[in-house]
């Protein structure tokens, strides 16, 4: 359960992320050059300019109280952030160490308009601007360090403002007037004298051009206030005058920024085109020339919807200045480019938001595949007509094996350079993790190294309630592995199906499929077709059924589905049948759980790969307590407001095939957490008890009793048995707060199951089921003791030794995924959240593997010594015998 100190990093890795970058500022003054970033995930961090690694990081609240409104940093200064959403918090940070220097709160009395607030820092003062469109602007200045208010709020009358106005500190700019005679108005809100710059907008456009009047500011930290009109013209404000640039925006979607380079002020633009890739241009304003060494274009780098976060110009020893361009993509990846288009580093920040993960087996190597097909019965009959053919084949395979062995021996040195081939290892510990991120980017990751093997961005995929199925594993050699992702289309909300080869990331089979209907439910057919592929069953909104591929439709029989509505708590069951022409769905049962006003918080079903190893538990009196192993069981956790008990949590175990309620329990004055797990006959869910202000975990175990209901070997049927199982239940106090919960899973389920818990402190804990076993007795005597049950204690122990990730904290754990490996004792675990953490756990210790501290030297020395001792004593003994014989 716990590891040795020298095993750090041996089976585990952690990757830290910050999330999609919102603001970025370069720090080139400190000895270690870095980029200070603030992100959509409410993280403030410093990234190393050379490597892109996180130097320090602060994670704020994930709710709106942690939203970063402003990141200010100028050379030699301190980092300032404004976070929250009324009340706001102003904090100052040391850029080198990241330590907090000052903090003070601001509350805005006008709560309705507070979200329109704009912030910036000017001359050591924090400026807060609150616009009231069509009437006035409220400008307040605070001392940055202390928060003391310099004078009162000044109100600037501005009747010309509207919600299309933008702020380019310190100017507030609007387009006002009617279509056709727009006026461009701008105001320096911090100056004492109110000076409005006003010009007709048509001055900046040639005649006949249609002017829409859309404003957008320049991206990144600009050295001069400037903005873009209608995605065409670029204007700067200099000495209280508009100054149009004689360059226009190169592309409608281009992102532009304005920097002060050594050679003069410079306009940098970047845009991406689906076919042409990324283009960057730079234009010197002072000399009116293109800067050619900054220019790049080409399909080499493809950043979808590239956006400039900042451009840095470094003075090098040589004459030529060096440039660093920080770019953000629509796929949340951030790239640092240098001139010429070389990528210095990239960070895949979308991995901070993983919504689904699946472990996929690797294919066996070619020689192994040949071996397997040789011993495959069906294949053998087809291929070899005689014994001789089989014998020749055997010799051939053995020759091949010998050949590879020799090759391996010869090329041992060279192997290190080439990446290890993606083939299954002996214990099947090497897998590929397919990850789907919130933004719609799909990754294939090597589980041993954490390296990204392939990635694929699809902007059309809406990953809200996305599901992923492994429809064919790599176990069927001529066929490749096959993974299908079912989500929604970004715009229409209709079904969107992507089929991939998880090993290489290429599209296969149905490729990308846009359905013309919304989906209600998706399932995988349990039987395989001729190509060893599990068919996909899609239940549409109008309750018609689609089967992918269509040829698998006749295979549909005895298939049941359910649909649950989160908001009303209604559940509807369907039975699917093939009627000779098509598959039809019939409504079979419907339930309204939890009473009126109930809301489903979470539903936990069994894992698709789950196996049940034993049918019961042996008791102390040598009898067997048989488990109620219903493969169709679901745990539904509901919450409903109650007039007397505030909130009531109801947990119901439902048979999803026939709609029968198997077990239920209620907790008053409690609020449910979306954490519930179900495996075998065990159910567990969490709720917060408002009465005692603590977190509790409730567990249930279902048993048939001392007698079997069905004769041994019979498959369970939801329709066959009307008996209710006996339910053991118990609740325990969790002295921490959890954000993720999962069961370990192993190949044959012989190993114990442990609960894996993600704590809000960033720790991952492993807790044996025995501690939350509902059969823990109150007093320890007699039978329970003999059975090995632990006596009941209300509070669960969470010792530091049970931590999987020791001091490698995983921030904001969102989910834990466990997958079996080829070793029965070992389960592979991936925790996702802001960070990624991968490790493997052995719930019952590694009973099928030699300990890794097994001392091979000692045992060989002892063995050698014994052999030497045996022969030497033999020699001495014979000599003695000889001597004695002479006496």
């Amino acid at each position: 359960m716990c590891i040795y100190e020298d095993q750090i990093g041996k089976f585990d890795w952690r990757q830290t992320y910050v999330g999609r970058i919102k603001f970025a500022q370069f720090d080139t003054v400190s000895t270690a050059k870095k980029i200070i970033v603030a992100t959509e995930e409410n993280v403030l961090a410093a990234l190393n300019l050379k490597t892109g690694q996180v130097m320090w990081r602060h994670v704020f609240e994930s709710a709106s109280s942690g939203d970063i409104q402003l990141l200010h940093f100028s050379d030699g200064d301190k980092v300032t952030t404004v976070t929250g959403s009324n009340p706001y918090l102003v904090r100052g940070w040391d850029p080198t160490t990241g330590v907090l220097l000052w903090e003070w709160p601001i509350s805005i009395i006008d709560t309705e308009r507070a979200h329109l607030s704009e912030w910036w820092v000017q001359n050591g003062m924090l400026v807060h601007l609150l616009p009231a469109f069509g009437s006035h602007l409220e400008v307040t200045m605070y001392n940055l360090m202390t928060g003391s208010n310099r004078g009162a709020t000044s109100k600037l009358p501005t009747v010309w403002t509207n919600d299309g106005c933008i702020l380019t500190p310190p100017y507030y700019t609007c387009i006002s007037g009617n279509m056709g005679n727009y006026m461009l108005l701008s105001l320096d809100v911090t100056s004492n004298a109110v000076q409005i710059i006003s010009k007709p907008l048509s001055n900046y456009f040639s005649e006949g051009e249609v002017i829409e009047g859309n404003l957008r500011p320049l991206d990144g930290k600009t050295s001069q206030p400037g903005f873009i009109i209608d995605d065409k013209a670029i204007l700067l404000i200099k000495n209280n005058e508009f100054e149009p640039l004689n360059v226009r925006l190169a592309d409608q979607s281009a992102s532009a920024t304005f920097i002060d380079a050594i050679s003069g002020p410079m306009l940098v633009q970047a845009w991406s085109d689906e076919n042409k890739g990324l283009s960057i241009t730079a234009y010197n304003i002072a000399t009116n020339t293109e800067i050619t060494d900054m220019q790049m274009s080409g399909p080499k780098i493809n950043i979808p919807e590239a956006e400039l976060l900042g451009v840095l110009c470094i003075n090098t020893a040589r004459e030529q200045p060096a440039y660093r361009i920080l770019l953000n993509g629509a796929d949340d990846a951030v790239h640092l480019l240098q001139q010429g288009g070389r990528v210095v580093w990239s960070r895949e920040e979308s991995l901070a938001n993983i919504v689904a993960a699946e472990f996929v087996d690797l294919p066996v190597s070619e020689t192994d595949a040949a071996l397997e097909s040789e011993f495959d019965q069906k294949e053998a009959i087809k291929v070899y007509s005689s014994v001789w053919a089989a014998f020749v084949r055997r010799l051939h395979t053995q020759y091949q094996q010998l050949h590879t062995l020799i090759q391996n021996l010869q090329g041992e040195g060279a192997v290190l350079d080439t990446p290890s081939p993606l083939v299954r290892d002996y214990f099947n510990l090497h897998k590929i993790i397919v990850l789907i991120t919130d933004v719609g980017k799909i990754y294939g990751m090597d589980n041993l190294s954490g390296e990204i093997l392939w990635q694929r961005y699809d902007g059309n995929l809406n990953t809200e309630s996305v599901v992923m199925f492994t429809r064919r594993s790599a176990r069927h050699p001529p066929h490749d592995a096959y993974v299908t992702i079912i989500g929604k289309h970004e715009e229409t909300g209709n079904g969107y199906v992507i089929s991939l080869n998880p090993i290489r990331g290429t599209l296969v089979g149905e490729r990308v499929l846009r359905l013309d209907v919304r989906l209600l439910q998706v399932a995988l057919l349990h039987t395989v077709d001729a190509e060893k592929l599990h068919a996909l069953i899609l239940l549409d909104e109008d309750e018609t059924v689609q089967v992918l591929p269509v040829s698998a439709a006749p295979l549909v029989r005895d298939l049941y589905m359910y649909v649950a509505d989160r908001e009303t708590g209604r559940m509807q069951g369907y039975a699917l049948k093939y009627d000779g022409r098509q598959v039809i769905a019939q409504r079979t049962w419907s339930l309204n759980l939890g009473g009126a006003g109930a809301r489903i918080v979470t539903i936990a079903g069994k894992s698709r790969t789950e196996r049940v190893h034993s049918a019961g538990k042996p008791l102390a009196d040598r009898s067997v307590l048989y488990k109620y192993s219903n493969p169709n069981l679901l745990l539904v956790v509901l919450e409903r407001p109650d007039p007397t008990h505030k909130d009531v949590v109801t947990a119901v175990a439902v048979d999803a095939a026939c709609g029968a309620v198997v077990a239920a329990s209620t907790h008053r004055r409690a609020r449910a957490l979306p954490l519930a797990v179900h495996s075998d006959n065990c159910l567990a869910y969490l709720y917060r008890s408002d009465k005692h202000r603590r977190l509790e975990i409730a567990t249930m175990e279902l048993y048939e009793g001392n007698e079997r209901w069905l004769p041994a070997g019979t498959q369970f049927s939801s329709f066959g048995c009307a008996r209710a199982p006996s339910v053991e239940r118990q609740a325990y106090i969790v002295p921490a707060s959890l954000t993720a919960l999962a069961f370990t899973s192993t190949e044959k389920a012989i190993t114990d199951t442990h609960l894996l818990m993600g704590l809000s402190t960033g720790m991952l804990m492993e807790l044996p089921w025995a501690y939350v076993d509902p059969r823990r007795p109150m007093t320890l005597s007699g039978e329970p003791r003999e059975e090995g049950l632990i006596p009941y204690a209300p509070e669960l122990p969470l010792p530091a030794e049970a931590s999987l990730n020791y001091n490698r904290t995983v921030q904001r754990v969102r989910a834990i995924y466990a997958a079996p490996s080829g070793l029965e004792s070992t389960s592979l675990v991936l925790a996702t959240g802001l960070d990624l953490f991968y490790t493997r756990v052995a719930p019952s210790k590694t009973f099928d593997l030699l300990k890794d501290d097994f001392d091979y030297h000692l045992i060989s020395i002892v063995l050698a010594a014994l052999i030497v001792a045996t022969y030497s004593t033999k020699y001495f003994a014979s000599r003695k015998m000889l001597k004695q014989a002479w006496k």
Partner: protein
Amino acid sequence: MCRMLSSIVPLLLLAANVLCAVNPSDDEVGVGRYIIEGRVFPPENSDASNWQIDTRIHVNAGEYIGFVKNDGTFTLHNVPSGSYVVEIVHPDYMYEPVRVEINSRGRIRARRVNYIQTSQVIQVPYPLKMKAATRFRYFQVREQWRITDFLFNPMVIMMVLPLFLIMILPKMMNDPETKEDLKQFGDIAKMTEFPEMSEYFASFFSGGAKPGAAKAKQNKKRQ
């Protein structure tokens, strides 16, 4: 007889909306916003120079998050009245959590967290003073190979002792005095078929240290 049946239970709800996990606190939320303040003391003899960056203050498991200044002080702003558990989160050191209660008039009381007897009040001083309790012990200590462990291992003793008996004792036998003793002993054994235990020992101990070894041999033989 139950019909053979297998069905698939899909796991996710596609039609449903996203779940909102954040619930408002159930206690009556006052209009007033208060601050929770205190000071974190770094673990003694800690070598980490920038412990401030690793230390975070979680209120109600991250509902409010505070950060530590250089001198160890922290302030949590904009906290409405209610009951909060304040935890100091550090990857290497454990701090005791404290429950802070702010009533609707803004009076603040701090007490120990007791999840079992929730009504029990053991007050702690406010502003909070958080001292590191212990260092987390994440790792098992690997058994080290020591020569004494090896020597006192029963297996080794079992091997060494017979070796001693085989190799050393015959050497001793060559000593004439012992031989005499043994001879005497042999005579007694011949005379009385089963010697008296007391005599046996007496004859031994009179012989001093060397017969001690003989006794060991005798014992061995009996085994």
